[in-house]
Protein backbone atom coordinates (compact mmCIF):
# COMPACT_ATOMS: atom_id res chain seq x y z
CA UNK A 1 0.00 0.00 0.00
CA UNK A 2 2.13 2.86 -1.25
CA UNK A 3 -0.10 5.84 -1.60
CA UNK A 4 0.79 9.43 -1.02
CA UNK A 5 -0.41 9.79 2.53
CA UNK A 6 1.28 6.62 3.72
CA UNK A 7 4.48 7.81 2.05
CA UNK A 8 4.31 11.22 3.64
CA UNK A 9 3.54 9.82 7.05
CA UNK A 10 6.32 7.33 6.51
CA UNK A 11 8.73 10.23 6.08
CA UNK A 12 7.38 11.97 9.14
CA UNK A 13 7.84 8.90 11.28
CA UNK A 14 11.09 7.65 9.73
CA UNK A 15 13.34 9.83 11.80
CA UNK A 16 12.16 8.37 15.06
CA UNK A 17 12.84 4.81 14.11
CA UNK A 18 15.82 4.72 16.43
CA UNK A 19 13.80 5.81 19.42
CA UNK A 20 11.12 3.22 18.93
CA UNK A 21 8.34 5.08 20.69
CA UNK A 22 6.37 7.93 19.18
CA UNK A 23 5.99 11.12 21.12
CA UNK A 24 2.92 13.33 21.07
CA UNK A 25 4.84 15.83 18.99
CA UNK A 26 5.52 13.22 16.33
CA UNK A 27 1.84 12.48 16.22
CA UNK A 28 1.03 16.18 15.94
CA UNK A 29 3.31 16.38 12.94
CA UNK A 30 1.60 13.36 11.44
CA UNK A 31 -1.75 14.99 12.02
CA UNK A 32 -0.65 18.09 10.12
CA UNK A 33 0.04 15.88 7.15
CA UNK A 34 -3.41 14.34 7.45
CA UNK A 35 -4.86 17.84 7.67
CA UNK A 36 -3.19 18.84 4.43
CA UNK A 37 -4.57 15.79 2.63
CA UNK A 38 -8.11 16.46 3.87
CA UNK A 39 -8.04 20.12 2.90
CA UNK A 40 -6.70 19.26 -0.54
CA UNK A 41 -9.64 16.93 -0.89
CA UNK A 42 -11.99 19.87 -0.10
CA UNK A 43 -13.12 18.53 3.24
CA UNK A 44 -14.71 21.39 5.14
CA UNK A 45 -12.21 23.35 7.24
CA UNK A 46 -14.12 23.29 10.52
CA UNK A 47 -14.97 19.64 10.07
CA UNK A 48 -11.31 18.85 9.40
CA UNK A 49 -10.39 20.43 12.70
CA UNK A 50 -12.94 18.35 14.66
CA UNK A 51 -11.93 15.24 12.81
CA UNK A 52 -8.26 15.71 13.63
CA UNK A 53 -9.03 16.15 17.31
CA UNK A 54 -10.90 12.86 17.39
CA UNK A 55 -8.27 10.99 15.42
CA UNK A 56 -5.46 12.40 17.49
CA UNK A 57 -6.98 11.07 20.69
CA UNK A 58 -7.16 7.58 19.24
CA UNK A 59 -3.76 7.83 17.64
CA UNK A 60 -2.02 8.70 20.87
CA UNK A 61 -3.43 5.59 22.50
CA UNK A 62 -2.68 3.22 19.66
CA UNK A 63 0.67 4.52 18.54
CA UNK A 64 2.27 4.69 21.96
CA UNK A 65 2.33 0.92 22.06
CA UNK A 66 5.62 0.63 20.19
CA UNK A 67 4.03 0.34 16.80
CA UNK A 68 5.98 -1.38 14.10
CA UNK A 69 4.45 0.57 11.26
CA UNK A 70 3.17 3.81 12.73
CA UNK A 71 2.43 5.39 9.36
CA UNK A 72 0.24 2.51 8.27
CA UNK A 73 -1.46 2.41 11.61
CA UNK A 74 -2.25 6.09 11.53
CA UNK A 75 -3.58 5.81 8.00
CA UNK A 76 -5.81 2.98 9.11
CA UNK A 77 -7.16 4.99 12.01
CA UNK A 78 -7.83 7.93 9.72
CA UNK A 79 -9.46 5.77 7.09
CA UNK A 80 -11.70 3.95 9.56
CA UNK A 81 -12.74 7.17 11.22
CA UNK A 82 -13.54 8.74 7.84
CA UNK A 83 -15.58 5.72 6.82
CA UNK A 84 -17.52 5.88 10.04
CA UNK A 85 -18.15 9.57 9.48
CA UNK A 86 -19.59 8.90 6.04
CA UNK A 87 -22.22 6.65 7.54
CA UNK A 88 -23.62 3.25 6.72
CA UNK A 89 -23.90 1.82 3.27
CA UNK A 90 -27.02 3.38 1.88
CA UNK A 91 -30.22 2.04 0.56
CA UNK A 92 -31.92 3.37 -2.52
CA UNK A 93 -35.03 5.45 -2.83
CA UNK A 94 -37.83 5.43 -0.31
CA UNK A 95 -40.98 4.26 -2.07
CA UNK A 96 -44.39 5.42 -1.00
CA UNK A 97 -46.95 2.75 -0.09
CA UNK A 98 -49.50 4.69 -2.12
CA UNK A 99 -48.16 5.26 -5.62
CA UNK A 100 -46.95 7.34 -7.21
CA UNK A 101 -43.81 8.01 -5.20
CA UNK A 102 -42.92 11.64 -5.75
CA UNK A 103 -39.30 12.70 -6.06
CA UNK A 104 -38.15 16.30 -6.23
CA UNK A 105 -34.69 17.21 -7.55
CA UNK A 106 -33.09 20.35 -6.10
CA UNK A 107 -29.68 22.02 -6.10
CA UNK A 108 -27.43 24.77 -7.36
CA UNK A 109 -27.18 25.68 -11.03
CA UNK A 110 -25.47 23.08 -13.17
CA UNK A 111 -25.02 20.51 -10.41
CA UNK A 112 -26.59 17.73 -12.48
CA UNK A 113 -30.28 17.65 -11.47
CA UNK A 114 -31.77 17.12 -14.92
CA UNK A 115 -29.22 14.51 -15.97
CA UNK A 116 -29.65 12.68 -12.66
CA UNK A 117 -33.46 12.78 -13.00
CA UNK A 118 -32.95 10.90 -16.27
CA UNK A 119 -30.58 8.42 -14.64
CA UNK A 120 -33.07 7.71 -11.85
CA UNK A 121 -35.89 7.26 -14.35
CA UNK A 122 -33.80 4.74 -16.24
CA UNK A 123 -32.97 2.81 -13.08
CA UNK A 124 -36.62 2.75 -11.95
CA UNK A 125 -37.76 1.66 -15.37
CA UNK A 126 -35.33 -1.25 -15.26
CA UNK A 127 -36.95 -2.22 -11.96
CA UNK A 128 -40.26 -2.28 -13.86
CA UNK A 129 -41.55 0.80 -12.06
CA UNK A 130 -43.28 3.01 -14.58
CA UNK A 131 -41.87 6.49 -14.15
CA UNK A 132 -42.79 9.96 -15.37
CA UNK A 133 -40.58 13.04 -15.55
CA UNK A 134 -41.99 16.50 -14.91
CA UNK A 135 -40.31 19.62 -16.31
CA UNK A 136 -40.62 22.25 -13.60
CA UNK A 137 -37.62 24.35 -14.66
CA UNK A 138 -39.21 27.27 -16.50
CA UNK A 139 -36.12 29.50 -16.38
CA UNK A 140 -33.05 27.91 -17.93
CA UNK A 141 -33.03 28.22 -21.72
CA UNK A 142 -34.06 24.90 -23.27
CA UNK A 143 -34.38 23.14 -19.90
CA UNK A 144 -37.65 21.59 -21.05
CA UNK A 145 -36.09 20.48 -24.35
CA UNK A 146 -33.27 18.88 -22.40
CA UNK A 147 -35.63 16.82 -20.24
CA UNK A 148 -37.81 15.90 -23.20
CA UNK A 149 -34.77 14.73 -25.16
CA UNK A 150 -33.66 12.59 -22.23
CA UNK A 151 -37.18 11.20 -21.83
CA UNK A 152 -37.36 10.28 -25.49
CA UNK A 153 -33.98 8.55 -25.40
CA UNK A 154 -35.03 6.55 -22.33
CA UNK A 155 -38.59 6.00 -23.49
CA UNK A 156 -39.92 7.64 -20.33
CA UNK A 157 -42.89 10.04 -20.58
CA UNK A 158 -42.25 13.70 -19.81
CA UNK A 159 -44.89 16.15 -18.67
CA UNK A 160 -44.27 19.75 -19.75
CA UNK A 161 -46.37 22.87 -20.18
CA UNK A 162 -44.75 25.71 -22.08
CA UNK A 163 -47.72 28.03 -21.60
CA UNK A 164 -47.17 28.78 -17.92
CA UNK A 165 -44.39 29.89 -15.55
CA UNK A 166 -46.27 28.52 -12.54
CA UNK A 167 -44.18 25.58 -11.40
CA UNK A 168 -46.68 24.49 -8.74
CA UNK A 169 -49.34 24.21 -11.40
CA UNK A 170 -46.98 22.30 -13.71
CA UNK A 171 -45.91 19.86 -11.03
CA UNK A 172 -49.48 19.21 -9.86
CA UNK A 173 -50.67 18.60 -13.41
CA UNK A 174 -47.72 16.30 -14.06
CA UNK A 175 -48.47 14.29 -10.94
CA UNK A 176 -52.17 14.08 -11.85
CA UNK A 177 -51.16 12.68 -15.20
CA UNK A 178 -48.99 10.17 -13.34
CA UNK A 179 -51.90 9.15 -11.13
CA UNK A 180 -54.17 8.69 -14.16
CA UNK A 181 -51.55 6.53 -15.85
CA UNK A 182 -50.91 4.52 -12.69
CA UNK A 183 -47.25 5.46 -12.65
CA UNK A 184 -45.23 4.21 -9.74
CA UNK A 185 -42.87 7.18 -9.63
CA UNK A 186 -43.00 10.82 -10.68
CA UNK A 187 -39.73 12.79 -10.73
CA UNK A 188 -40.00 16.56 -10.67
CA UNK A 189 -36.99 18.42 -12.12
CA UNK A 190 -36.54 21.95 -10.81
CA UNK A 191 -34.40 24.88 -11.90
CA UNK A 192 -30.97 25.40 -10.37
CA UNK A 193 -30.85 28.16 -7.78
CA UNK A 194 -28.59 29.71 -5.17
CA UNK A 195 -29.43 28.83 -1.57
CA UNK A 196 -29.34 32.57 -0.76
CA UNK A 197 -31.90 33.48 -3.41
CA UNK A 198 -34.95 34.02 -1.19
CA UNK A 199 -37.55 34.19 -3.99
CA UNK A 200 -36.30 31.08 -5.71
CA UNK A 201 -36.03 29.14 -2.43
CA UNK A 202 -39.55 30.24 -1.62
CA UNK A 203 -40.69 28.74 -4.90
CA UNK A 204 -39.30 25.38 -3.78
CA UNK A 205 -40.96 25.65 -0.38
CA UNK A 206 -44.31 26.27 -2.07
CA UNK A 207 -43.70 23.43 -4.47
CA UNK A 208 -42.92 21.07 -1.60
CA UNK A 209 -46.07 22.09 0.28
CA UNK A 210 -48.18 21.50 -2.83
CA UNK A 211 -46.84 18.13 -3.97
CA UNK A 212 -45.64 16.59 -0.68
CA UNK A 213 -42.69 14.69 -2.14
CA UNK A 214 -41.52 11.40 -0.64
CA UNK A 215 -37.96 12.22 -1.55
CA UNK A 216 -36.29 15.62 -1.87
CA UNK A 217 -32.90 14.88 -3.36
CA UNK A 218 -30.21 17.52 -3.09
CA UNK A 219 -27.95 17.13 -6.11
CA UNK A 220 -24.44 18.44 -5.48
CA UNK A 221 -21.44 18.70 -7.76
CA UNK A 222 -18.77 16.33 -6.41
CA UNK A 223 -16.08 18.90 -7.22
CA UNK A 224 -17.54 21.50 -4.85
CA UNK A 225 -15.08 23.22 -2.55
CA UNK A 226 -15.31 24.62 0.96
CA UNK A 227 -18.76 26.13 0.43
CA UNK A 228 -20.44 22.71 0.17
CA UNK A 229 -21.65 22.76 3.77
CA UNK A 230 -23.28 26.18 3.62
CA UNK A 231 -24.99 25.39 0.34
CA UNK A 232 -26.35 22.08 1.62
CA UNK A 233 -27.44 23.70 4.86
CA UNK A 234 -29.30 26.38 2.94
CA UNK A 235 -31.30 23.80 0.97
CA UNK A 236 -31.85 21.64 4.02
CA UNK A 237 -33.12 24.48 6.18
CA UNK A 238 -35.65 25.44 3.54
CA UNK A 239 -36.73 21.96 2.51
CA UNK A 240 -35.59 19.33 5.00
CA UNK A 241 -34.06 17.26 2.21
CA UNK A 242 -34.27 13.46 2.37
CA UNK A 243 -31.07 12.55 0.57
CA UNK A 244 -28.04 13.65 -1.38
CA UNK A 245 -26.68 12.71 -4.80
CA UNK A 246 -23.10 13.64 -5.62
CA UNK A 247 -22.32 14.01 -9.31
CA UNK A 248 -19.30 14.19 -11.62
CA UNK A 249 -17.26 11.75 -9.58
CA UNK A 250 -15.98 10.18 -12.80
CA UNK A 251 -13.20 12.77 -12.76
CA UNK A 252 -10.25 13.01 -10.38
CA UNK A 253 -11.89 15.26 -7.79
CA UNK A 254 -11.28 13.81 -4.37
CA UNK A 255 -14.84 14.45 -3.29
CA UNK A 256 -14.37 15.93 0.16
CA UNK A 257 -17.79 17.50 -0.36
CA UNK A 258 -19.28 14.10 0.47
CA UNK A 259 -17.77 14.18 3.92
CA UNK A 260 -18.57 17.84 4.39
CA UNK A 261 -22.24 17.46 3.51
CA UNK A 262 -22.86 14.18 5.29
CA UNK A 263 -20.76 15.20 8.25
CA UNK A 264 -22.95 18.22 8.87
CA UNK A 265 -26.42 17.22 7.64
CA UNK A 266 -26.34 13.47 8.33
CA UNK A 267 -28.62 13.00 5.34
CA UNK A 268 -27.87 9.84 3.37
CA UNK A 269 -25.87 10.03 0.19
CA UNK A 270 -28.13 7.87 -1.95
CA UNK A 271 -26.21 7.68 -5.21
CA UNK A 272 -23.19 9.07 -6.98
CA UNK A 273 -23.02 10.22 -10.60
CA UNK A 274 -20.06 8.87 -12.53
CA UNK A 275 -20.66 10.03 -16.08
CA UNK A 276 -22.95 11.85 -18.45
CA UNK A 277 -24.75 8.82 -19.82
CA UNK A 278 -28.02 7.60 -18.28
CA UNK A 279 -26.44 4.46 -16.85
CA UNK A 280 -23.68 6.32 -15.02
CA UNK A 281 -25.26 6.22 -11.57
CA UNK A 282 -23.81 4.13 -8.75
CA UNK A 283 -24.55 3.27 -5.17
CA UNK A 284 -22.57 5.12 -2.57
CA UNK A 285 -19.90 3.19 -0.66
CA UNK A 286 -18.53 5.05 2.38
CA UNK A 287 -15.30 3.03 2.59
CA UNK A 288 -14.48 3.68 -1.07
CA UNK A 289 -15.24 7.34 -0.62
CA UNK A 290 -12.92 7.48 2.38
CA UNK A 291 -10.17 5.87 0.29
CA UNK A 292 -10.77 8.36 -2.47
CA UNK A 293 -10.59 11.35 -0.15
CA UNK A 294 -7.31 10.02 1.23
CA UNK A 295 -6.12 9.19 -2.29
CA UNK A 296 -5.57 5.57 -1.43
CA UNK A 297 -7.20 3.83 -4.34
CA UNK A 298 -9.64 1.15 -3.37
CA UNK A 299 -8.46 0.16 0.07
CA UNK A 300 -11.21 -2.42 0.40
CA UNK A 301 -10.10 -4.44 -2.58
CA UNK A 302 -6.50 -4.12 -1.43
CA UNK A 303 -7.40 -5.58 1.92
CA UNK A 304 -9.50 -8.26 0.27
CA UNK A 305 -6.56 -9.30 -1.90
CA UNK A 306 -4.19 -9.58 1.03
Amino acid at each position, binding site marked *: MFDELTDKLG*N*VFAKLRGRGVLTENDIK*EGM*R*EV*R*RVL*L*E*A*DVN*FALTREFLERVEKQAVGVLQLKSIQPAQQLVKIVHDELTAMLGERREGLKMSSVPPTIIMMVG*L*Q*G*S*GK*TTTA*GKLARRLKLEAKSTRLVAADV*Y*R*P*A*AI*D*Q*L*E*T*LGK*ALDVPVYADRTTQDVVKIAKAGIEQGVRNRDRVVIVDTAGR*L*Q*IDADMMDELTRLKAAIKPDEILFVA*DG*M*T*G*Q*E*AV*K*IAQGFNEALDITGVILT*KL*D*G*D*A*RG*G*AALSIYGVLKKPIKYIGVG*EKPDALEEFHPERMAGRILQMGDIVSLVEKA
Partner: protein
Amino acid sequence: IKDVVRTDVSVLFKGVDEGSLEALETLLIESDFGVPTSLALVAEVERRHKRGDVKSESEFRQALADGVEAALRKGNSDPALRTNPGGPTVVLVIGVNGAGKTTFIGKLSAAFRAEGKRVLLGAADTFRAGAIDQLRVWSERAGVDFVGGAPGSDPASVAFDAVDAGVTRGVDVIIVDTAGRLHTSDDLMTELRKIHRVIGKRLPDAPHEILLVLDGTIGQNALSQARTFSAAVPVTGIVVTKLDGTAKGGIVVAVHEALDVPIKFVGLGEQIGDLEPFDAGDYARELVET
Protein backbone atom coordinates in the same frame (compact mmCIF):
# COMPACT_ATOMS: atom_id res chain seq x y z
CA ILE B 1 9.14 19.30 5.70
CA LYS B 2 9.18 23.06 6.04
CA ASP B 3 5.89 23.04 4.24
CA VAL B 4 4.53 20.61 6.79
CA VAL B 5 5.51 22.78 9.73
CA ARG B 6 4.02 25.84 8.09
CA THR B 7 0.70 24.11 7.81
CA ASP B 8 -0.08 25.05 11.36
CA VAL B 9 0.14 28.77 11.78
CA SER B 10 -0.24 28.69 15.52
CA VAL B 11 2.93 26.67 15.88
CA LEU B 12 4.94 28.98 13.72
CA PHE B 13 3.69 32.31 14.94
CA LYS B 14 3.20 31.61 18.59
CA GLY B 15 3.36 34.83 20.52
CA VAL B 16 3.40 37.04 17.42
CA ASP B 17 -0.10 37.81 16.33
CA GLU B 18 -1.30 34.33 16.28
CA GLY B 19 -4.98 35.18 16.22
CA SER B 20 -4.88 37.51 13.23
CA LEU B 21 -2.65 35.32 11.15
CA GLU B 22 -4.71 32.26 11.92
CA ALA B 23 -7.87 34.14 11.01
CA LEU B 24 -6.33 35.02 7.65
CA GLU B 25 -5.38 31.44 7.02
CA THR B 26 -8.90 30.31 7.86
CA LEU B 27 -10.37 32.93 5.56
CA LEU B 28 -8.20 31.79 2.67
CA ILE B 29 -8.72 28.07 3.13
CA GLU B 30 -12.47 28.57 3.48
CA SER B 31 -12.41 30.59 0.25
CA ASP B 32 -10.82 27.65 -1.62
CA PHE B 33 -7.35 29.14 -2.05
CA GLY B 34 -5.85 25.78 -1.14
CA VAL B 35 -3.14 25.04 1.41
CA PRO B 36 0.04 26.07 -0.48
CA THR B 37 -1.33 29.40 -1.75
CA SER B 38 -2.88 30.22 1.63
CA LEU B 39 0.40 29.55 3.42
CA ALA B 40 2.39 31.65 0.98
CA LEU B 41 -0.02 34.58 1.29
CA VAL B 42 -0.10 34.39 5.08
CA ALA B 43 3.70 34.18 5.20
CA GLU B 44 3.88 37.39 3.17
CA VAL B 45 1.58 39.15 5.65
CA GLU B 46 3.76 37.85 8.45
CA ARG B 47 6.85 39.34 6.82
CA ARG B 48 5.14 42.71 6.67
CA HIS B 49 4.03 42.31 10.26
CA LYS B 50 7.62 41.70 11.32
CA ARG B 51 8.72 44.83 9.50
CA GLY B 52 6.16 46.66 11.61
CA ASP B 53 3.87 47.60 8.71
CA VAL B 54 0.95 45.54 9.93
CA LYS B 55 -0.49 45.89 13.40
CA SER B 56 -4.25 46.19 13.66
CA GLU B 57 -6.82 43.64 12.54
CA SER B 58 -7.82 45.86 9.62
CA GLU B 59 -4.19 46.23 8.58
CA PHE B 60 -3.86 42.47 8.55
CA ARG B 61 -6.82 42.23 6.22
CA GLN B 62 -5.55 45.02 4.01
CA ALA B 63 -2.16 43.34 3.78
CA LEU B 64 -3.84 40.14 2.73
CA ALA B 65 -5.89 41.91 0.06
CA ASP B 66 -2.69 43.49 -1.25
CA GLY B 67 -1.06 40.08 -1.40
CA VAL B 68 -3.96 38.54 -3.30
CA GLU B 69 -4.11 41.42 -5.74
CA ALA B 70 -0.35 41.29 -6.31
CA ALA B 71 -0.51 37.55 -6.97
CA LEU B 72 -3.27 38.07 -9.52
CA ARG B 73 -1.39 40.91 -11.23
CA LYS B 74 1.82 38.97 -11.53
CA GLY B 75 2.84 37.75 -14.99
CA ASN B 76 0.28 37.42 -17.72
CA SER B 77 -2.72 39.17 -16.21
CA ASP B 78 -4.37 41.52 -18.69
CA PRO B 79 -8.11 40.79 -18.71
CA ALA B 80 -8.68 42.35 -22.15
CA LEU B 81 -9.63 39.93 -24.90
CA ARG B 82 -7.16 39.41 -27.70
CA THR B 83 -8.59 40.36 -31.05
CA ASN B 84 -7.68 39.56 -34.61
CA PRO B 85 -7.11 42.84 -36.43
CA GLY B 86 -7.14 41.18 -39.86
CA GLY B 87 -10.48 39.41 -39.69
CA PRO B 88 -12.85 37.71 -37.34
CA THR B 89 -11.73 37.00 -33.80
CA VAL B 90 -12.42 33.39 -32.89
CA VAL B 91 -13.12 32.51 -29.25
CA LEU B 92 -13.21 28.87 -28.19
CA VAL B 93 -14.95 28.18 -24.87
CA ILE B 94 -14.08 25.05 -22.91
CA GLY B 95 -14.49 23.53 -19.46
CA VAL B 96 -16.00 20.75 -17.38
CA ASN B 97 -19.70 19.92 -17.26
CA GLY B 98 -22.09 22.56 -16.03
CA ALA B 99 -19.41 25.19 -15.36
CA GLY B 100 -21.37 27.88 -17.20
CA LYS B 101 -19.86 27.88 -20.70
CA THR B 102 -23.03 28.31 -22.73
CA THR B 103 -24.45 31.00 -20.45
CA PHE B 104 -21.13 32.86 -20.55
CA ILE B 105 -21.23 32.80 -24.34
CA GLY B 106 -24.71 34.28 -24.29
CA LYS B 107 -23.56 37.11 -22.05
CA LEU B 108 -20.33 37.71 -23.98
CA SER B 109 -22.19 37.95 -27.28
CA ALA B 110 -24.46 40.58 -25.80
CA ALA B 111 -21.42 42.55 -24.62
CA PHE B 112 -19.95 42.44 -28.15
CA ARG B 113 -23.30 43.45 -29.64
CA ALA B 114 -23.38 46.44 -27.32
CA GLU B 115 -20.06 47.50 -28.87
CA GLY B 116 -21.70 47.25 -32.29
CA LYS B 117 -19.86 44.09 -33.28
CA ARG B 118 -21.37 41.39 -35.42
CA VAL B 119 -21.22 38.03 -33.69
CA LEU B 120 -21.75 34.41 -34.73
CA LEU B 121 -22.16 31.49 -32.33
CA GLY B 122 -21.18 27.92 -33.22
CA ALA B 123 -22.94 25.13 -31.31
CA ALA B 124 -20.23 22.48 -31.14
CA ASP B 125 -21.83 20.79 -28.14
CA THR B 126 -23.68 18.18 -30.13
CA PHE B 127 -23.70 15.74 -27.22
CA ARG B 128 -25.68 17.00 -24.26
CA ALA B 129 -29.47 16.88 -24.49
CA GLY B 130 -30.86 20.30 -25.31
CA ALA B 131 -27.46 21.96 -25.66
CA ILE B 132 -27.98 23.20 -29.20
CA ASP B 133 -31.39 24.66 -28.39
CA GLN B 134 -29.95 26.32 -25.30
CA LEU B 135 -27.29 28.15 -27.34
CA ARG B 136 -29.85 29.03 -30.00
CA VAL B 137 -32.05 30.70 -27.38
CA TRP B 138 -29.04 32.71 -26.20
CA SER B 139 -28.22 33.75 -29.78
CA GLU B 140 -31.79 35.04 -30.16
CA ARG B 141 -31.66 36.89 -26.85
CA ALA B 142 -28.39 38.57 -27.82
CA GLY B 143 -29.41 39.14 -31.42
CA VAL B 144 -26.47 37.32 -33.01
CA ASP B 145 -25.98 34.73 -35.77
CA PHE B 146 -26.13 31.04 -35.02
CA VAL B 147 -24.67 27.93 -36.66
CA GLY B 148 -25.51 24.49 -35.32
CA GLY B 149 -25.37 20.92 -36.55
CA ALA B 150 -27.55 17.94 -35.84
CA PRO B 151 -27.51 16.39 -32.36
CA GLY B 152 -24.87 13.70 -32.27
CA SER B 153 -22.96 15.04 -35.26
CA ASP B 154 -19.18 15.61 -35.22
CA PRO B 155 -18.45 18.68 -33.07
CA ALA B 156 -15.26 19.48 -35.00
CA SER B 157 -17.16 19.78 -38.25
CA VAL B 158 -19.71 22.09 -36.60
CA ALA B 159 -16.82 24.23 -35.36
CA PHE B 160 -15.37 24.28 -38.88
CA ASP B 161 -18.72 25.25 -40.38
CA ALA B 162 -19.20 28.01 -37.82
CA VAL B 163 -15.80 29.55 -38.53
CA ASP B 164 -16.38 29.14 -42.25
CA ALA B 165 -19.77 30.87 -42.04
CA GLY B 166 -18.34 33.64 -39.89
CA VAL B 167 -15.50 34.32 -42.31
CA THR B 168 -17.82 34.24 -45.31
CA ARG B 169 -20.38 36.53 -43.70
CA GLY B 170 -17.67 38.88 -42.50
CA VAL B 171 -18.64 38.89 -38.83
CA ASP B 172 -16.35 40.42 -36.21
CA VAL B 173 -16.45 37.67 -33.60
CA ILE B 174 -17.05 33.93 -33.77
CA ILE B 175 -17.64 32.12 -30.48
CA VAL B 176 -17.56 28.34 -30.41
CA ASP B 177 -19.36 26.52 -27.59
CA THR B 178 -18.15 23.04 -26.69
CA ALA B 179 -19.62 20.20 -24.66
CA GLY B 180 -18.72 19.98 -21.01
CA ARG B 181 -16.01 17.38 -20.51
CA LEU B 182 -14.07 16.13 -17.57
CA HIS B 183 -10.34 16.55 -18.16
CA THR B 184 -9.79 12.94 -17.14
CA SER B 185 -11.54 11.62 -20.24
CA ASP B 186 -8.84 11.00 -22.85
CA ASP B 187 -11.36 10.56 -25.65
CA LEU B 188 -13.05 13.85 -24.94
CA MET B 189 -9.73 15.68 -24.64
CA THR B 190 -8.70 14.22 -28.00
CA GLU B 191 -11.99 15.46 -29.42
CA LEU B 192 -11.21 18.91 -28.04
CA ARG B 193 -7.79 18.94 -29.69
CA LYS B 194 -9.45 18.06 -32.95
CA ILE B 195 -11.94 20.93 -32.62
CA HIS B 196 -9.02 23.24 -31.97
CA ARG B 197 -7.03 21.94 -34.92
CA VAL B 198 -9.93 22.18 -37.34
CA ILE B 199 -10.61 25.80 -36.42
CA GLY B 200 -6.98 26.61 -37.21
CA LYS B 201 -7.32 24.86 -40.54
CA ARG B 202 -10.16 27.10 -41.62
CA LEU B 203 -8.59 30.27 -40.28
CA PRO B 204 -4.84 30.31 -39.60
CA ASP B 205 -3.93 31.59 -36.11
CA ALA B 206 -7.45 30.92 -34.88
CA PRO B 207 -8.74 30.50 -32.22
CA HIS B 208 -7.41 33.78 -30.85
CA GLU B 209 -8.79 33.12 -27.41
CA ILE B 210 -9.30 29.80 -25.67
CA LEU B 211 -11.24 30.52 -22.52
CA LEU B 212 -11.44 27.94 -19.77
CA VAL B 213 -14.62 28.35 -17.72
CA LEU B 214 -14.40 27.46 -14.03
CA ASP B 215 -17.36 27.18 -11.70
CA GLY B 216 -16.70 29.60 -8.82
CA THR B 217 -18.00 27.00 -6.38
CA ILE B 218 -15.31 24.52 -7.28
CA GLY B 219 -12.60 23.37 -4.92
CA GLN B 220 -9.05 22.14 -5.41
CA ASN B 221 -9.86 20.06 -8.48
CA ALA B 222 -9.84 23.25 -10.55
CA LEU B 223 -6.05 23.09 -10.58
CA SER B 224 -6.01 19.64 -12.10
CA GLN B 225 -8.60 20.75 -14.66
CA ALA B 226 -6.63 23.83 -15.60
CA ARG B 227 -3.39 21.90 -16.04
CA THR B 228 -4.94 19.15 -18.13
CA PHE B 229 -7.01 21.43 -20.34
CA SER B 230 -4.05 23.68 -21.04
CA ALA B 231 -1.88 20.70 -21.85
CA ALA B 232 -4.43 19.72 -24.49
CA VAL B 233 -5.03 23.15 -26.03
CA PRO B 234 -3.28 26.47 -25.34
CA VAL B 235 -5.66 28.12 -22.87
CA THR B 236 -5.41 31.93 -23.03
CA GLY B 237 -7.71 32.99 -20.23
CA ILE B 238 -9.96 31.97 -17.36
CA VAL B 239 -13.62 32.78 -16.76
CA VAL B 240 -15.01 32.33 -13.24
CA THR B 241 -18.77 31.90 -13.02
CA LYS B 242 -21.40 31.87 -10.28
CA LEU B 243 -19.61 34.36 -8.04
CA ASP B 244 -23.05 35.76 -7.21
CA GLY B 245 -23.30 32.78 -4.87
CA THR B 246 -21.55 32.48 -1.52
CA ALA B 247 -18.39 30.74 -2.76
CA LYS B 248 -15.30 32.88 -3.32
CA GLY B 249 -13.53 30.99 -6.11
CA GLY B 250 -10.16 31.37 -4.39
CA ILE B 251 -8.58 28.58 -6.43
CA VAL B 252 -8.25 31.01 -9.36
CA VAL B 253 -5.12 32.40 -7.73
CA ALA B 254 -3.39 29.03 -7.85
CA VAL B 255 -4.72 28.49 -11.38
CA HIS B 256 -3.38 31.86 -12.51
CA GLU B 257 0.01 31.03 -11.00
CA ALA B 258 0.12 27.55 -12.50
CA LEU B 259 -0.89 28.55 -16.03
CA ASP B 260 0.34 32.13 -16.20
CA VAL B 261 -2.86 33.19 -17.94
CA PRO B 262 -5.17 36.04 -16.95
CA ILE B 263 -8.57 35.73 -15.30
CA LYS B 264 -10.68 37.57 -17.89
CA PHE B 265 -14.31 37.55 -16.81
CA VAL B 266 -16.53 36.98 -13.83
CA GLY B 267 -20.05 35.58 -14.10
CA LEU B 268 -22.45 37.09 -11.60
CA GLY B 269 -25.81 35.61 -12.44
CA GLU B 270 -28.00 33.96 -15.03
CA GLN B 271 -29.19 37.09 -16.81
CA ILE B 272 -27.68 38.40 -20.01
CA GLY B 273 -26.04 41.41 -18.32
CA ASP B 274 -24.47 39.45 -15.46
CA LEU B 275 -20.91 39.50 -16.79
CA GLU B 276 -18.01 41.69 -15.72
CA PRO B 277 -14.38 41.97 -16.75
CA PHE B 278 -12.22 40.58 -13.97
CA ASP B 279 -10.64 43.15 -11.67
CA ALA B 280 -7.95 41.85 -9.32
CA GLY B 281 -8.33 44.77 -6.92
CA ASP B 282 -12.11 44.43 -6.60
CA TYR B 283 -11.77 40.70 -6.15
CA ALA B 284 -9.20 41.03 -3.37
CA ARG B 285 -11.18 43.75 -1.60
CA GLU B 286 -14.41 41.77 -1.62
CA LEU B 287 -12.59 38.75 -0.32
CA VAL B 288 -11.41 40.41 2.89
CA GLU B 289 -14.55 42.47 3.41
CA THR B 290 -16.84 39.50 3.85
